[in-house]
């Protein structure tokens, strides 16, 4: 086996000097067009050893947020309705960030938002409660789209078995559902919370409040049957006769023409409001009845990030296996950038929790996608990139880690 990345990521692992993330962190891609095998690009780390997410966070403190707030008010004025209609859609999971977004738009900016939720694979108890509380406590109207469970678990299964990426169908749904419902309900504004670039997509992605529409729309001549999950097209799934094309209606993105004809705009609130995930947690706790998880999630110390879906710990376990970056790394990097913890603390937390086996909902996951434990372990081992992993005394260990480098 050659000693290189299975995912086209850099062969030399480099860690950011300010946080705990490495250059193996892949940037977002348009996953529904992926057949697998394409090279991923990792977060860039500049000549001073600083990653794009940390660079952006430094810039955040120089932004004139008062000015941005004025810009937002001016922008919203164009969309605000006073006839009882909804004037914007907030794609929401019931998590802290989207609950903050929906609630603050309603209360502070006097908008009339409709929260639209693409259901998780398997709700956690607290996730479902938080989702309901956004309406019950927070007073925000919401609708829930729950895709065909048989189809969705099948898509999750092939995404796991083909790409080691069980979260792909969910991410797809979450990305397309806001604009799709905007079109259906004739609400021309979709407002997301933070830009993913906060966490390390290209720096320039943070320079605009508009969302890159390649994630939720397709060219007008694009054949929907070419949409892929785990690299497998809808066409070839249909050919197996278990599902038909009609089953996929919630998964089909808008065409670019539909977006422009209905003048749908997609923006990030994080461009206008200084984004601080922990402050979103406080805000949501105080205003929308949000509660943290009843215990820390597997693989991390945190109780407040991404707690809605039982699959999330499995998802981060796969990122740990594929990229050497587990859930504690993501959480710690974010909290270091937002000055909640020091880098030293972050390194300690990564050492303690990253890559912890996702035991809590493991059986639920196996049942959900109908595979055996042996199949799971076999797949996991296939996903280990040889430039990251070695086997010592029958145990897999990471060749490079931030705690080995720094202690």
């Amino acid at each position, binding site marked *: 086996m050659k000693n290189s990345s299975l995912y086209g990521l850099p062969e030399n692992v480099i860690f950011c000097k300010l946080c705990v993330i490495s250059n193996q962190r892949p940037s977002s891609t348009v996953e529904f067009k992926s057949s697998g095998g394409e090279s991923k690009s990792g977060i860039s780390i500049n000549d001073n050893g600083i990653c794009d997410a940390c660079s952006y966070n430094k810039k955040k403190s120089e932004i004139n947020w008062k000015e941005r707030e004025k810009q937002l008010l001016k922008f919203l004025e164009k969309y605000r309705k006073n006839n009882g209609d909804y004037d914007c859609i907030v794609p929401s999971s019931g998590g802290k960030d989207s609950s903050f977004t929906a609630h603050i738009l309603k209360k502070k900016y006097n908008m009339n938002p409709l929260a639209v939720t693409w259901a998780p694979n398997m709700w956690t108890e607290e996730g479902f409660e938080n989702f309901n509380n956004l309406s019950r406590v927070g007073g925000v109207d919401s609708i829930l789209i729950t895709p065909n469970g048989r189809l969705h678990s099948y898509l999750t299964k092939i995404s796991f078995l083909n790409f080691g990426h069980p979260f792909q169908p969910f991410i797809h749904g979450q990305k397309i559902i806001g604009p799709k419902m905007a079109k259906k309900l004739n609400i021309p504004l979709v407002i997301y919370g933070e830009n993913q670039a906060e966490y390390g997509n290209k720096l320039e992605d943070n320079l605009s409040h508009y969302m890159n529409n390649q994630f939720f729309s397709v060219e007008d001549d694009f054949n929907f049957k070419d949409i892929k999950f785990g690299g497998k097209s809808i066409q070839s799934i249909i050919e197996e006769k278990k599902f038909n094309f009609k089953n996929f209606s919630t998964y089909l993105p808008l065409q670019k023409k539909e977006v422009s004809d209905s003048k749908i705009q997609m923006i990030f609130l994080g461009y206008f409001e200084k984004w601080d995930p*922990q*402050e979103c*947690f*406080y805000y949501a*706790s*105080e205003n929308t009845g949000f*509660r*943290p998880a*009843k*215990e*820390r999630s597997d693989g991390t*110390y*945190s*109780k*407040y990030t991404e707690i809605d879906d039982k699959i999330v710990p499995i998802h981060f376990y796969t990122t740990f296996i594929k990229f050497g970056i587990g859930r504690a790394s993501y959480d710690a990097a974010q*909290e270091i950038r937002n000055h*909640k*913890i*020091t880098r030293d*603390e972050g390194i*300690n*937390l990564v050492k*303690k929790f990253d890559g912890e086996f996702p035991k809590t909902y493991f059986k639920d996951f196996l049942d959900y996608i109908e595979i055996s434990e042996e199949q799971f372990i076999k797949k996991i081992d296939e996903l280990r990139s040889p430039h990251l992993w070695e086997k010592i005394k029958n145990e897999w260990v990471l060749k490079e880690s931030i705690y080995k480098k720094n202690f």
Partner: protein
Amino acid sequence: MRVIARLDIKNEDVIKGINFEGLRVMGKPNYLAKKYYNEGADELIYSDCVASLYGRNNLSKFVESAAKDIFIPITVAGGIRNKKDAELLMKNGADKLAINTELFKNDNLGKELIKKYGSQSILLSIQAKKISRDSWEAYINFGRDRTNMDVEEWVKKMVPSNFGELLLTSIDADGLSNGFDVELYEKICKIVNIPIIACGGFGKLIHIKELKKFADVDAISISKALHYNKINIGEIKNYIKKND
């Protein structure tokens, strides 16, 4: 009823979360300690909220400087794993120590410390999370990890070691200012005869009355309402005196 001000500390700062989550900075430990002392707090609790997480204890320097000009009992909680940790804190001016996480690994630690420092100096600390209408589970690592141990059972198991007091914190009520978890204290008060400190949930004076109606607790511990200047300790003490 004693009124205790509680300082959750991470590194150099007092922080305050909600349901034991979040690290919002409130101020400097010794500045706030002095303030609450001057307002008439009966005692202080210094709690290192990341001690178990990082396997360290950071509080002795704060306790040492506080002990010079604060003349009320100081209890230290968080990260006390062995006799050495205890000794360092006691030497630097702690009056009492509260132990939780380590007891789940080594339930002798309580007995050992009680033998050395006396019952009055060693508190049993429990972080309780409600799991059904009538039961609570004990948590460790500042409310992050479950133990599968029922709080009532744990109390019955540990109290005979002769702990001087029980610091009983409700994870569900923490940081919300919606009142104490009255049922928790009602239940536990009935089964122990050592003083109980109720911690978590205080937001306004009426919450004390609601608590006292059902549970004979010996002290209340308050943090958020004080840090956010919603109330001062003098007002709380007057209220308690009037309603006694």
